[in-house]
């Protein structure tokens, strides 16, 4: 059995899905981030000065790009897979001889593609406001891909466990967005005091944003190796959990 054809079919279907509805999937992050750059970077940022030697605009660009990657890779998979469950066309895959790892890889790939595409769109917009030269391109791309993978997996798990459309909006609204904003997109850990500095070190998104920022402008608050280990560890954990749930048929089979 040639699984590569099944995998390609799922990936093509997923990519075509979000490209077909680009006004819902690609346009909003372009507008939102342009406003971030304009308001936080240009208007307020000029009064803040520099952080670790970088201008405030340069400092927030990596965080905003990665925040977009995180939210869109997550929302792509959670929305697409839940819709597949809701419309019951998941049955097309369950009836066919498609192994669980192919289903998982196909949907996750869709999330990664959308996350990275949105990241590129946001990066292009940032070029209108900042003049950034990427210091470590390989590391930057690696962090972006791994982060998109991690949050695509998280979205997949959310979709599997969700029983209503409310369930797929709770995590993005009440967990992802706060953790992203508190993950050092707009400020450095050094700017916090006392207990807050300790608390923020428990936010995994902070490690990802700092690793990405290091790749782009060479500035970080955390150890890069630790950040990579953390992302890789979460990926292995969530991928394993997803496969177990698919094997059990959780949320998709009676």
């Amino acid at each position, binding site marked *: 059995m040639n699984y590569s054809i099944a995998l390609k079919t799922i990936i093509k279907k997923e990519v075509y899905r979000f490209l077909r509805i680009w006004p819902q999937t690609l346009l909003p992050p372009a507008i939102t981030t342009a406003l971030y750059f304009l308001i936080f970077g240009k208007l307020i940022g000029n009064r803040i000065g520099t952080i670790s030697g970088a201008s405030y605009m340069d400092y927030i660009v990596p965080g905003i790009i990665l925040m977009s990657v995180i939210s869109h890779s997550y*929302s792509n998979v959670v929305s697409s897979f839940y*819709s597949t*469950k809701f419309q*019951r066309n998941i049955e097309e895959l369950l*009836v*066919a*001889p498609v192994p669980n790892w192919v289903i998982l890889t196909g949907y996750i790939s869709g999330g990664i593609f959308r996350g990275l595409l949105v990241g590129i769109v946001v990066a292009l917009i940032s070029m209108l406001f900042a003049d950034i030269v990427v210091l470590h391109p390989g590391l930057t791309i690696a962090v972006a891909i791994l982060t998109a993978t991690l949050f695509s997996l998280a979205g997949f798990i959310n979709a599997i466990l969700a029983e209503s*459309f409310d369930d797929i909006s709770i995590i993005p609204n009440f967990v992802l967005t706060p953790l992203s904003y508190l993950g050092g997109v707009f400020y450095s850990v050094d700017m916090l005091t006392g207990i807050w500095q300790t608390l923020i070190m428990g936010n995994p998104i902070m490690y990802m944003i700092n690793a990405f920022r290091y790749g782009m402008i060479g500035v970080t608050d955390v150890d890069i190796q630790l950040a990579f280990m953390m992302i890789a560890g979460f990926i292995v954990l969530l991928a394993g959990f997803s496969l177990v749930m698919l094997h059990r048929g959780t949320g*998709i089979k009676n």
Partner: protein
Amino acid sequence: MTALSISNLKKTYKNGFVALKGIDLEVQAGDFFALLGPNGAGKSTAIGIISSLVTASSGSVSIFGHDLVKEREQAKSCIGLVPQEVNFNQFDTVQGIVLNQAGYYGMPRKLALQRTELCLKQMDLWDKRNSISRRLSGGMKRRVMIARAMVHAPKLLILDEPTAGVDIEIRRSMWKLMKEVNQQGTTIILTTHYLEEAESLCRNIAIIDQGKIVENTDMASLLARLNVDHFVLDLAEPLAVVPVLEGCHVERTSDKVLDVSVPKAVGLNQLFSQLSVKNIKVLSLKNKSNRLEQLFMDLIDSKSSQNNPTPQITPSPPAPQGHKGEGKGEGY
């Protein structure tokens, strides 16, 4: 060769509902097989297990000799499923739906395009290939599901109420198509509530009720068991009283219509002889109910009264995996 072999298959849902109480079934290759039963009897659960949509509690299923658990992919490759309800992505085009399914079965693109064209033409849907599927009529959606199920040329085609809700013209054309597909060598398992459909298409039959197979035989033998035929007679002139016809049971539904139950031992010749003697002119005659329907009701009624002398409230099978709230279509 055996197309489908089911052994001691049991299914108990999480809410405690026992949908299958250990069924055994064999369907031979090339057969056109009817799986009938009242609502909630266990048909859909059995089909769900065969097509990997429902997990069995115990028992085994093998398809063309491939065990569904041990040789999952080989077994699945043999099956095509037309489900009861529309379950394709309603935002996809007709061609996209069928092509994607071919891809899931590992079919190379060139072959997939050829097979998709063939199946859509067979279903008279080729002109609609670029239409968004949600804009199709109910009958067309059903035909899309049949085309999708046939795109990988399955050896075993499972049709779960394929003609439910379609008009008689489309139903007849679908019967013709199903016969052709079967004649080309595809084994077909059909569930339907239209017993006329099962009677005219299927050679063998199993009836399932309350999670058990209550009958498993060939159609001809089953129909031969029917020893009473029920007819409706339209009369030329009104009758004031119910006529007495020897050996038959007669009821008057209106002054010009009689319901007559005629035992096979009596036969129609004798019935009409008696009517002639009484100078009762008959304008037309029709079967009161389909023959299989009559047998089906007899079987279900007799088994139900044996199993359930007093009515009981039992838990229902769970709905398909629950999804609450308003649909938002394709997501975002």
